[in-house]
């Protein structure tokens, strides 16, 4: 550990960043001052658009060139103002004194260069190393960031690595020249929770080993709690609070900080309750525990495989086993959640319910078998099942007015027209908390949360019995996420709607579900009521998922460093692949665990 000095390693004073817009200059970072102490971690937190990335980029003089510029302020590093350095000198600072990790591991590596080339470039950016020395250092770095088989990785291209691996490479590049400071801009946002946990632990370990200081940018209070020594909370480009981590979480002073913390779903906070969060607040709710009745949706042995074509004749050569023999029921008024990591088949399962992709098995919606139904035969079924897509913006036709978009299902199904239609749409708008006079606007004129409400309104317009909500809150800031979750639950309370709620976020799932199914590699590994899953997880994978969720509580012991990273197994197999048998085990009360047969 480094000596604590009175003056910090990096002192930022009055940093102000402006961007040029058609309407004139706009200040996106406003008079920001902070000090980064040696060997410490400073977390900059705040919601999307609050100016976090701009702050980081301005410290590297990497602001997007003509649009953004630093209009005031200083940042002293070893006595030099790095905001004012000319480009040639700044180049000496980049990499040597400050290393940086970017938000998107998928795009921050050059797709056409090998890992070895890029890492080598970073090592020798300031020249003077022999090829052998570069290679040795590259291997050392890869080893340091815990990448298995480093020698092989050097020859690989970025797209051949998983997201987690790539982010490790980016970290290795940032560390290549032994900088004193590491700036990490949302380094884990795009990653699965389990991978996120590994990366966060890695950064902590490197910090401890190398004694560097870290500026960590994140919007996730859980991550802040895991990482921070000091926390700086930003809102609209301004600093609203700057305190040690323990203080922030225990005694947040600024209302915005309080709001932020309140909105964060905390894993385990609902231990002991049976119904979803909202309902437990309201004991008079009509549906408390779903009464055992006819299931609204019955899925048996649902299997979805996608062929990968190739060869001379474009015949299938490989197959993606996206969903493998999944069975479940959804009762009226019940929320079933599907959780699992990226690519495990959640969305595919949801789409199969609406016949949006070809599938095998048996699905019954309100008693009707939907297998093989054509577009028009499906239409009545779709009155009962609707879907809200993952990305609200992408699922709204940007060239249509939102009012028309919400009216569309009614028109398609011929349920209303003329003034009746207008009334229905206006009602739906009010129902999801939008005002009816916003109907004439276009999707881009709304915020992310509002757009999600529009999608919900559209899904509601047919008064379906089931809504498939695919990652409906994943793209939203926590505060908005909380609002949308509340809305969904209110609707359920009112109408007895069922949800198939798809998410990768265990904490969110805990809040909203009656029952939870954990998916891994296209299969269910565990299914049961919320309490059964969260309070008594049985399957290893379920446990691992839960352990990986960062908890917004700095007092909790930080998780230990994990083993070397491994890639997730791939769902792509040869044509002759037969999935291994699984045995289901009912451990009581409908709590099912699937394990490989023969164990």
């Amino acid at each position: 550990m480094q000596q604590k000095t009175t003056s910090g390693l990096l002192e930022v004073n009055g940093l102000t960043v402006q961007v040029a817009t058609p309407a004139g200059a706009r200040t996106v970072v406003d008079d920001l001052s902070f000090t980064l102490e040696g060997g410490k971690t400073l977390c900059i937190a705040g919601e999307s658009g609050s100016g976090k990335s701009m702050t980081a980029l301005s410290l590297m003089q990497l602001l997007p060139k003509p649009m953004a510029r630093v209009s005031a302020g200083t940042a002293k590093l070893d006595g030099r103002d790095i905001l004012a350095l000319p480009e040639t000198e700044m180049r000496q600072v980049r990499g040597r004194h400050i290393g940086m990790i970017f938000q998107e591991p998928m795009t921050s590596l050059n797709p056409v260069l090998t890992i070895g080339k890029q890492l080598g470039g970073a090592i020798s950016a300031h020249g003077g190393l022999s090829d052998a020395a570069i290679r040795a250092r590259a291997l050392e770095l890869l080893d340091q960031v815990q990448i298995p088989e480093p020698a092989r990785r050097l020859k690989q291209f970025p797209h051949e690595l998983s997201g987690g691996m790539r982010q490790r490479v980016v970290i290795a590049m940032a560390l290549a020249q032994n900088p004193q400071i590491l700036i990490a801009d949302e380094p884990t946002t795009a990653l699965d929770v389990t991978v996120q946990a590994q990366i966060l632990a890695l950064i902590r370990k490197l910090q401890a080993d190398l004694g560097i200081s870290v500026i960590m940018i994140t919007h996730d209070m859980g991550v802040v709690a895991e990482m921070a020594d000091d926390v700086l909370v930003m809102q609209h480009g301004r600093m609203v609070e700057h305190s040690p981590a323990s203080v922030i979480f225990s005694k947040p002073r600024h209302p915005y900080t309080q709001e932020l913390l309140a909105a964060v779903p905390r894993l385990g906070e609902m231990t002991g309750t049976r119904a979803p969060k909202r309902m437990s607040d309201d004991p008079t709710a009509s549906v408390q525990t779903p009464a055992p009745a006819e299931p609204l949706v019955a899925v048996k042995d649902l299997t979805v495989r996608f062929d990968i074509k190739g060869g001379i004749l474009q015949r299938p050569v490989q197959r993606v086993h996206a969903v493998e023999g999944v069975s479940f029921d959804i009762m009226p008024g019940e929320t079933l959640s599907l959780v699992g990591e990226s690519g495990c088949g959640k969305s595919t399962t949801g789409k199969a319910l609406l016949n949006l992709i070809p599938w095998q098995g048996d699905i019954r919606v309100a008693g009707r078998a939907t297998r093989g139904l054509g577009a028009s035969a499906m239409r009545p079924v779709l009155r009962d099942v609707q879907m809200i897509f993952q990305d609200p913006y992408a699922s709204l036709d940007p060239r249509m007015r939102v009012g028309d978009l919400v009216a569309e299902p009614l028109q398609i199904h011929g349920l209303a027209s003329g003034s009746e239609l207008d009334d229905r749409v206006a009602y739906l708008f009010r129902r999801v908390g939008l005002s009816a006079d916003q109907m004439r606007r276009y999707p881009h004129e709304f915020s992310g949360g509002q757009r999600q409400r529009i999608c919900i309104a559209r899904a509601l317009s047919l008064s379906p019995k089931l809504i498939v909500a695919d990652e409906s809150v994943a793209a939203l800031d926590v505060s908005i996420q909380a609002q949308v979750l509340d809305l969904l639950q209110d609707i359920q309370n009112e109408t007895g709607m069922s949800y198939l709620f798809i998410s990768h976020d265990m904490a969110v799932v805990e809040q909203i579900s009656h029952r939870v199914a954990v998916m891994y590699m296209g299969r269910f590994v565990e299914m049961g009521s919320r309490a059964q899953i969260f309070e008594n997880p049985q399957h290893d994978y379920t446990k691992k998922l839960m352990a990986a969720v960062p908890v917004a509580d700095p007092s909790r012991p930080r998780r230990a460093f994990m083993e070397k990273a491994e890639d997730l197994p791939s769902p792509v197999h040869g044509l002759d692949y037969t999935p291994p048998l699984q045995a289901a085990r009912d451990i009581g009360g409908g709590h099912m665990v699937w394990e490989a047969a023969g164990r």
Partner: protein
Amino acid sequence: MSQTVAETETHVATPSVLARLLRRPLALTGLVIIAVVVLAAVFAPWLAPYDPYEQFFEGLTIEGAPLPPSAQFWFGTDLVGRDLFSRLIYGAQTSLIIGVVANGIAVVIGSAVGISAGYFRGWADTVLMRFTDLMMAFPALLLAIVLAAIFSPSLWIVAMVIAMVNWVQIARVTYTETRSIAERDFVVAERAMGAGAGRILFRHILPHLLSTIIVWATLGIATTVLLEATLSFLGIGVQPPIPSWGNIIFENQTYFTSAPWLVFIPGAAILALALAFNLVGDALRDILDPTQQGRH
């Protein structure tokens, strides 16, 4: 939300496309040139100082040489003693008719092929796109020449020939774009609501292709004008004595040393018109395509 503000700015609440075109100097230049040519074509009978078909006796020297530009014949006379300026003005009609009609047909065929192949997939996709591939591999000019030889050339035949050669590009572009739009969430969402193909195609996909189609249509006009000129230059375009800028050059090309005005003035006219459409098309591409933003 701050995010909303940012996006409102990028997806500008359209102050009409025209207004935005006018704000760009290059596009404005292009529009002005096009306007001049259109006016010349429409008002040719009033603007042209002479009958474009009249072979003036005094339009040739005693030896039979054409006259250089002068006060009487502003752009000089051609090899049979006609007023070049008048012929250029009437020639604008030809270029524009070909540009608009031929290209219009090409755009319609191309988008119909591209959209249906892109949306319906299956055998329609295979058949249409294989055919498009085939047409792509055809050396366009050779095809046009052969077609022009089969149907003995006239203004309308030339227009048809050009249309048959030019639709391929548009088919390709709309095909690719339709395919990607058809995969976008909002189309999947439409299907999830039970919308039929007609509704999806006409209400959701077509509007998204419109800007692409408009852009390619303008750029296509430039290509078309050039192709007509080339066909005429090779002597298989619009039939004499109807003037087209290309066949004026064709008739006079060998005189480029002794009467350069006969080649380079119409050459400049073709260049200017093609340039104008390219400038406007490119500006439209910028304006209508949000992914191309950040230029100018």
